[in-house]
């Protein structure tokens, strides 16, 4: 260790921006949260009273909307990087609206399950399903708040446009929540 000479080190790690470090760490925390839920799910699954519930086929459609939402965000990121306002705006709209479709779809899937009598407190498998989808939905909803801020900014005629890094971080959040959904959906399907 060099203790006595000035070092011309630039502040920051791996050339990441403040916001990137913040969001990546946040994603790590979210990962841990869902990891604990998965652990608890697998632990509880091995008890006698566990009865898996059928997955409504609507969930496949919801998964597709989340994939499209993610693609929309990727499109918006490209638009922002190339300063192409049309693709930025279209991408953002696709990304946000399909995320909202996903949320509506998830809510609908709940309704279907309730209709078929798979109530929250009937079985631990049901409770886990509602709890995990609710927490995932809550994270998507928080993303939608950030999406609204950035989308409003990009329609602002004379204000600051959202920077490519902001749009790209929002897209990262979208991709990551898609990944988490796929993992959780996979967990539900395989058990």
């Amino acid at each position, binding site marked *: 260790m060099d203790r006595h000479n*000035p070092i*011309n080190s630039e*502040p920051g790690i791996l050339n990441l921006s403040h916001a990137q470090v*913040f969001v990546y760490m946040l994603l790590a925390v979210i990962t841990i949260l869902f990891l*604990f*839920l998965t652990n608890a799910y697998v632990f*509880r699954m091995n008890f006698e009273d566990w009865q898996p519930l059928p997955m409504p086929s609507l969930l496949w459609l919801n998964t597709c909307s989340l994939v499209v939402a993610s693609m929309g965000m990727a499109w918006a990121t490209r638009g922002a990087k190339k300063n192409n306002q049309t693709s930025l705006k279209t991408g953002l709209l696709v990304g946000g609206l399909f995320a909202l479709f996903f949320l509506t779809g998830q809510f609908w899937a709940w309704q279907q399950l309730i209709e078929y009598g798979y109530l929250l407190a009937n079985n*631990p498998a049901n409770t886990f399903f509602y709890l995990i989808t609710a927490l995932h939905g809550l994270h998507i909803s928080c993303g939608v708040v950030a999406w609204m801020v950035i989308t409003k900014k990009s329609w602002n005629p004379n204000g600051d446009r959202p920077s490519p890094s902001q749009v790209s971080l929002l897209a990262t959040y979208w991709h990551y929540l898609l990944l988490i959904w796929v993992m959780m959906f996979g967990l539900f399907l395989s058990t």
Partner: protein
Amino acid sequence: MEQSAAYEGQQVYHPKGWWGHYVFSQDHKIIALQYTCVALAIGLTGMFLSMMMRMQLGFPGLFDSIDAGNYYQDVTMHGMIMVIYLLTALFLGGFGNYLIPLMLGSRDMAFPFVNMLSFWVYFLSVIILSASFFVPSGPTGAGWTLYPPQSILEGTPGGDGAGILLMLISLAVFIIAFTMGGLNYITTVLQSRARGMTLMRMPLIIWCIFLATFLGLLAFPALFVGAIMLTFDRVLETSFFMPEIFKGGEVLDYGGGSPVLFQHLFWFFGHPEVYIIALPAFGIISELISCHARKNIFGYNMMVWALVAIAGISFIVWAHHMYVAGMNPYLGFFFATTTLIIAVPTAIKVYNWVLTLWHANIKMTVPMLYCLAFLITFLIGGLTGLFLGNVSVDVPLSDTYFVVGHFHMVMAVSPVLALYGGLYHWFPSVTGRMLDDRLGKIHFWITFVGTYLIYFPMHYIGFLGVPRRYYSNEQYDFIPQSVADLNQFITICALIVGASQFILLYNFVNSTIRGKKASKNPWGACTLEWQALESPPGHGNWGDQLPVVYRWPYDYGLPGATADFVPQNVPDEQIT
């Protein structure tokens, strides 16, 4: 001015009006003060609750108002308040907020608005927690570990009312506040260091707060999940944790759940939580011991790697809190082994502190007294931890006063000694005035000697097999009269120590108003928080120009220098 270019991304926020300056402030120093004041206020409540417990144990039946239910509520709230709402909040929210930007040569936290939000959400969690004192059946009395099924069933104090719910909600809100603050600390440490402040030139306390924050961010989600699932079990009658329960001949709606699952979730958080509290205490001691012994810290690199090792291993020891919950003996063996291994990096730290003192120019200031007291106390608490880490020793001692003595020594008295040392050390930086030295020494000696008189006898009571958490020890033949006498003695000591904390409080208030004016760097410390232009540091911390760092933070007694310390921002050519 090339400095400002590197910091273009970090905009400095400018407060507007009195509210902006002192209430909804985004300045890390004000937020640190807000965290400290709220944490100390709720901590005083926690101390008052412990006095109520001691009155019952020392003089059973003296107060009619303390019944078994109240007693359990006092025990529960005392534990939770002290561990989470006082120590975690004060070390990370208070010390973390104040020291990270100042010690790293930054203008503020990376995200000041999120930082402000973090405090207000923490404040909300304290309000929710305090509200449980005022609901009809009072706060929860389930014990601070909140083990189901008992914690959410009727009959447990607070279990039939809102008490347990308010506790669980308050914890979830606290975790959200901590996450916002924690992400900020991590980002600031990684991103906002002054030029020349490499990671291996950071003061050890910043390393400690940084790693403790990491632990918190990775461990608190376990408690969050546990709290939400327990809330579901309580409100929606689900059965995550609830087995089949027969109550008064009736079968309750629950069935099939696993109480041990909650224990795993709780302790996966609970053990790292010990280090979330201990690491900042280690950091404070490292700073204080080096500065007040006028000698560089021994083995800086080893200290950093020991911290990293402690942080890592702390995630694989949690089940040593669950030896009696019923576990596979091989699993017990594994957790006993990891528990003993964590003693190695911890011992490295203790040796390094002792070696720092070796042949040093030790100044017996109040902060140094606290350092020495910490070293002894932490050593004793750590040694009894080695006993309890072994399954075969733990099983007979489990749930006795030996455990109470152990954890109070290692994670209550030790961190509080470090905390007080830190408060005395950094008080001049915050207020520009010195704390009264004479009052400080009186407060120190009463606290230090008093805590030993309180907790040492508890080990002995534990060896006699007296169970913890019992409201009354009177009806048991195996508990001799000497225990009642000792309990009286402990209670009297506890009352004296409790009362002596008001000396500190008085010293704070009096010295803030009338204290002796402090010079800019009264302790002659090398770290950056004492090198700001003004004392106390103004808004934006550094005036026009950010500091540049040329050396590590412990250049005490540098050969060739006239002064016995060289601050971090002094280049070699300016050393006189």
